[in-house]
């Protein structure tokens, strides 16, 4: 299960996000890290320090690209400039797969820079799947879609979120980046059982997993990536690993970022679940 056609038949372990407060530590101390995930848009530029640092990181580490503004679910066609820059970066990083979100965020050429939730309709699934195929055909590497955290549901929805995810993944024949923190956040905001979600995802399509922390407010939970992973999310992660096996896992920590060591230690907690999955496979 771990190496599949949706993650380029790779067998990556535990990674963390490459973030600027850690650049100096990474480049000078060269810590042992399985892989780094980069936000593609931060490096889809023509030159300068970000690309120089990326090149230095690439000399030492494996890098996987994760995007935040392809907006597979936007009704409009993919932006050609975006695609061209993304492909240039893919050629630079040699990322074995590429992920972005199952959401929308732009309409009529205007960008919200947010991960807005999809209406779970068959029309939306068809349009989204078509766009994923277009992107994959252009980029020429496997694509995985990530479930987002959401704070709203639409009247027009015709299915559950996990049914929608499966519908899109099947139609696009793409991988899934399963964010178990996002499942937990949405389950609290929309009152569903997160294990039903995890148990419904086609295990053979899971290319990668995200874990993260979040912030709890009085009436809802916000996906802030600024805390350690909480126990209920680790339990969901354990169940996910039980179903999909040893899978590339990435800890997201994007705000109030602590030291490199603290972030890496938090990510490495995933090892206790991955180790048991490896053991089960061996037996």
């Amino acid at each position, binding site marked *: 299960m771990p190496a599949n056609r949706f993650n380029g038949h790779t067998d990556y372990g535990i990674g963390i996000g490459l973030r600027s407060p850690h650049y100096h530590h990474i480049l000078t101390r060269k810590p042992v890290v399985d892989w780094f995930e980069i936000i593609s848009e931060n490096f889809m530029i023509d030159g300068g320090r970000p690309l120089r640092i990326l090149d230095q990181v690439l000399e030492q580490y494996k890098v996987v690209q994760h995007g935040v503004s392809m907006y597979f679910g936007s009704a409009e066609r993919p932006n050609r400039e975006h695609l061209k820059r993304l492909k240039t970066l893919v050629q630079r990083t040699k990322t074995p797969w590429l992920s972005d979100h199952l959401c929308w965020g732009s309409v009529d050429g205007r960008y*919200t*820079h947010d991960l807005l939730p999809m209406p779970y309709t068959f029309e939306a699934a068809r349009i989204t799947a078509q766009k994923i195929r277009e992107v994959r055909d252009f980029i020429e590497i496997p694509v995985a879609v990530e479930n987002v955290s959401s704070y709203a549901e639409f009247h027009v929805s015709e299915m559950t979120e996990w049914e929608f995810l499966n519908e899109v993944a099947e139609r696009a024949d793409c991988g899934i980046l399963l964010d178990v923190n996002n499942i937990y956040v949405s389950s609290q905001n929309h009152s569903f059982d997160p294990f039903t979600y995890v148990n419904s995802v086609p295990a053979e399509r899971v290319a990668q997993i995200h874990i993260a922390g979040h912030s709890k407010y009085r009436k809802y939970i916000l996906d802030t990536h600024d805390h350690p992973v909480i126990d209920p999310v680790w339990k969901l992660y354990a169940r996910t690993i039980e179903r999909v096996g040893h899978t590339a896992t990435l800890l997201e920590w994007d705000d109030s970022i602590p030291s490199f060591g603290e972030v890496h230690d938090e990510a490495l907690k995933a090892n206790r679940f991955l180790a048991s999955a490896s053991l089960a496979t061996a037996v």
Partner: protein
Amino acid sequence: MKLLNLQRRMARAVMTPLTRSERMRAVAPDGRSMRAVANQIIKPNDRLTSFERLEIYNRQYWFRVLSAFAEDFPGLRAVLGGRRFDAMAKAYLIDCPSQSFTLRNLGSRLLSWLQKHPAWARERQNLAVDMARLEWADIEAFDGLREPALKPEDLAGVNPEKLRLRLQPYVSLLALRYPVDDLLLEVRKDSDDLDVASNTFSERHKRKRVSTVAKLTPSPIFLAVHRLDEDVYFRRLDREEFAILSSLHPGKSLSAAIESALRHSPIVAADRAAHVEKWFHTWSALGWFCRPQKYVVTFHAQTESFGKAKIYE
């Protein structure tokens, strides 16, 4: 409801400006009831109404774009003052919402917008425009393309009458009415200091900055905003330097650019060659010139490439 229609409605709601207390408006500026819009598209749950759920996205949108914008223009914030800058930023982002997949380009239309809306800066309009120019040039210099730099051997045997040079795409030449480079550096230094400062210290710095802005008097400068070893620098230029480099932009040959730049210069004729040699040495050492594809490039190739270099007068 079709996907496109739903997305248009929701995006309009999400991008509607917040109230003064940073909540979602009950009524949009065009008279729509936001509650009706929310009820029509979004389900309520046992804790939140449709309005409250939509409001989460409305607030997130404005917090995100305003904070990204403020991060890019700390100098303009110092010129206008915090409250006026925040109001101006909202007005700008209403008129010029992002049209790019990256927040990096959020301020790309600020300069022209500011020139059309002088009421925001009032008596500081020229200062504000200068600062906006500088801060946008800074963004461009940070991640602009670096082409292979011109090498001495590229010039061997080339007739200066025919030599046409191109500036690196990341270099911007600015003719400014105020010495805003000094002000921006001071604002940044303040900001670095504030990272470790107490409230009292921060208040003192704020007062100092306000007083610096108030004292700033017009004093024309010529500036190159460029990058060296991946750090962005502001380099003051002599008037003649600026004139030569600017003349290269529309495709003049090097000798024609030098001739026109020095025509009315107070530099005495006997010293001119030495000046030009010194300037050229500096520009070359800084890697400002691109290596020509051929030693003498065609006019067509120049116009395409020169479009990337930026000159603001």
